[in-house]
């Protein structure tokens, strides 16, 4: 018998270890995706909370890096099944649909967070039929990064529309004697995030899927084909690509920073990384995202992450309140390129003079204030798959001459397939 007891005990011991996690009562755990500068700043915020408000309340906040934003979602979903959830997790728009459907989320409204201090557009970005899902904290928006040195030498200003970019592509791009491109005008293949603006801004406001981009109810129908928005984008983009100065890549950051591309689209919170990678080799400029056409006036959506709560307590609320304080928001925004989530920071003289002195950081703020707050991020299932399929279709159209109508209908069919499959398995109202 002994021989059996031992392995059985071993298994039981392992199982109890795996189930693990005697969480301390007075610790708030925050899962996040911050690296580099962002993680340093976030840690310093946690430290200062722990030393002040935290000390008074007897709580300690602990930040745990859990990989990229979508890795955090993967881990949250896995943890939900084993009661290993953190108190708070920072996740982006791709998590919203799953979180909305989950029964373990404590919405910001349910937690009784004071949302009156928040920027309306930031609230709108994370609002669903369940109310405000999460607390906007690291909001960002897409901006155009350009090589100011090159643009100035060519005597051009950043393009306002894709067509304008097409017109100046050969001025900011460069070829050597053999006709090989040594500097592209633009590097990157647009996908969900970029199309959130390129499609969302069309006709003042357009959606990718119904339910206001899946914010209200489950998205059931893809709209990019019937509204003609994806087709419109592809036509302008194909013309831009055909200048020969656009590089399809998913590594636009390195292409831009090394000077091999004169412009790229990226999130405003990448400013510190872009500055570090560029290392002063040339002057960086930031500008509004070029519009798809003259009627695409909707602007950009608020991207970035929000804090999803999984427990409700006074301590959690006190911590959130601390994060949303003007002082904290300003520090966070000024050192990371994130947009302040609190409305009053936008009128704070100190912040305004910071923007005056740091025009790179100013673009995202101006652009967000000028955008239609109804232009929001897309909440749909299979975010990863759709992200990469967009890139594949755009690459097929630009590089391999795939018919635009075919690409539009293939893309729409792919998204519709994901929606149908998700609804089939998860919708309660059949």
């Amino acid at each position: 018998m002994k021989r059996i007891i031992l392995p059985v005990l071993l298994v039981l011991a392992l199982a109890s270890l795996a189930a693990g996690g005697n969480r301390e009562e007075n610790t708030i755990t925050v899962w996040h995706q911050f690296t580099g500068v962002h993680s340093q700043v976030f840690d310093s915020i946690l430290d200062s909370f722990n030393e002040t408000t935290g000390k008074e309340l007897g709580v300690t906040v602990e930040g745990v890096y859990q990989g990229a934003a979508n890795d955090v979602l993967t881990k949250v979903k896995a943890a939900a099944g084993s009661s290993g959830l953190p108190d708070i997790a920072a996740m982006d728009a791709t998590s919203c649909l799953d979180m909305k459907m989950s029964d373990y989320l404590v919405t910001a409204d349910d937690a009784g967070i004071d949302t009156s201090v928040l920027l309306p557009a930031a609230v709108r970005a994370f609002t669903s039929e369940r109310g405000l899902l999460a607390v906007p904290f690291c909001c960002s928006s897409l901006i155009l990064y350009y090589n100011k040195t090159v643009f100035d030498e060519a005597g051009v200003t950043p393009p306002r529309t894709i067509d304008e970019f097409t017109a100046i592509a050969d001025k900011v791009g460069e070829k050597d004697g053999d006709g090989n491109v040594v500097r592209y005008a633009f590097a990157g293949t647009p996908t969900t995030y970029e199309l959130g603006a390129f499609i969302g801004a069309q006709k003042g406001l357009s959606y990718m899927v119904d339910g206001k981009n899946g914010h209200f109810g489950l998205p059931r129908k893809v709209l990019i084909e019937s509204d003609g928005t994806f087709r419109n984008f592809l036509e302008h983009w194909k013309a831009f690509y055909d200048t020969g100065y656009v590089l399809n890549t998913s590594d636009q950051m390195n292409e831009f920073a090394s000077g091999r591309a004169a412009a790229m689209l990226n999130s405003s919170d990448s400013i510190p990384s872009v500055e570090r990678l560029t290392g002063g080799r040339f002057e960086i400029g930031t500008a509004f995202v070029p519009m798809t056409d003259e009627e695409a006036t909707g602007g950009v959506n608020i991207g970035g992450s929000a804090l999803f709560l999984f427990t409700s307590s006074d301590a959690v609320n006190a911590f959130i309140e601390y994060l949303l304080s003007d002082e904290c928001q300003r520090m966070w925004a000024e050192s990371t390129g994130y947009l302040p989530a609190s409305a009053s920071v936008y009128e704070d003289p100190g912040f305004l003079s910071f923007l005056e002195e740091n025009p790179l950081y100013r673009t995202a703020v101006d652009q967000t204030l000028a955008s239609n707050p109804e232009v929001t991020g897309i909440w749909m299932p299979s975010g990863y798959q759709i992200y990469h399929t967009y890139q594949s279709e755009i690459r097929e159209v630009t590089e391999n001459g795939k018919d635009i109508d075919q690409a539009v209908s293939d893309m729409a069919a792919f998204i519709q397939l994901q929606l149908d499959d998700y609804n089939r398995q998860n919708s309660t109202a059949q």
Partner: protein
Amino acid sequence: MLTLSDMRTENGKAYVLLMPSLILAVMFSFYPLVKSVAGSFLTISQQGEVRGFAGLMNYISLFSDPAFPASIRHTLLFILMFLPLNTALTLLAAILTRRKTRWGGIAEYIFFMPMAVSLSSLSLIFREMFRGRVSVINQILDTDIAWLDSPGTALLVLAFLGVFLDFGIDYILLLSSFRRIDRNILEAAALDGAGNLRTLISIELPEIRTMLSVTVFLAAKDALLISAPVMILTQGGPFRSTETIMYYYYLEAFRSGNRGAESTITTLITIIAVIIMAMIASRRKNDWKNI
């Protein structure tokens, strides 16, 4: 002579001894498998709630997603690149070092090395070596290729990484097999005037062929199930060109929480595995005793 009751106690003892592994097998293999097969015919929400009988809908959904057949294609392509490369290189290394020589140990040590490096760190090293156009590899080869950013080359880099991961174990298996060949035969051949090459082709290779097929099967299994290196090295990119079956499974099951796809793919993979195991078993009947 054994009586019936003797046999009962004998059997009873055997069952008792079998119990621990049986319990583990049922808990961690059979139960999840049965659950998956059943799940592939049910509609289950992301929260794990069974909503009804799905018939073949899960299978239909899976095959109507163009990315799934694509992932099968990528896996087959990967096997086609990886398997010959891996077999040729490990066999070559084993052939070159099969005789014990004074300094041969150094070469052996180098060839064993990949075994001591963990999968994820090796993947990270590869990622850094092949990153961007200014990559270390481009500097060494004097090329200008965005290895991980173009579909064809990314899969090739993955195949090379695969070779590194399997090299150590395959090499050890082949080397030990070479060294276990009866020396008398080799000496007899040498006395008869057989050269090195003749001995290798006519005596040594036929002697190790069983082990060679074992390493090929092992490598084929690893290739069929490859996922972790994909996760770290390419994340399925660029443009979903390196998504293998298991990576696709990871995306659907863990990223998207698609329970239908999860159990359906598990069922299909199990069927493939059973077929492969049957192939190995049939070989085993003929060859296993020779190892």
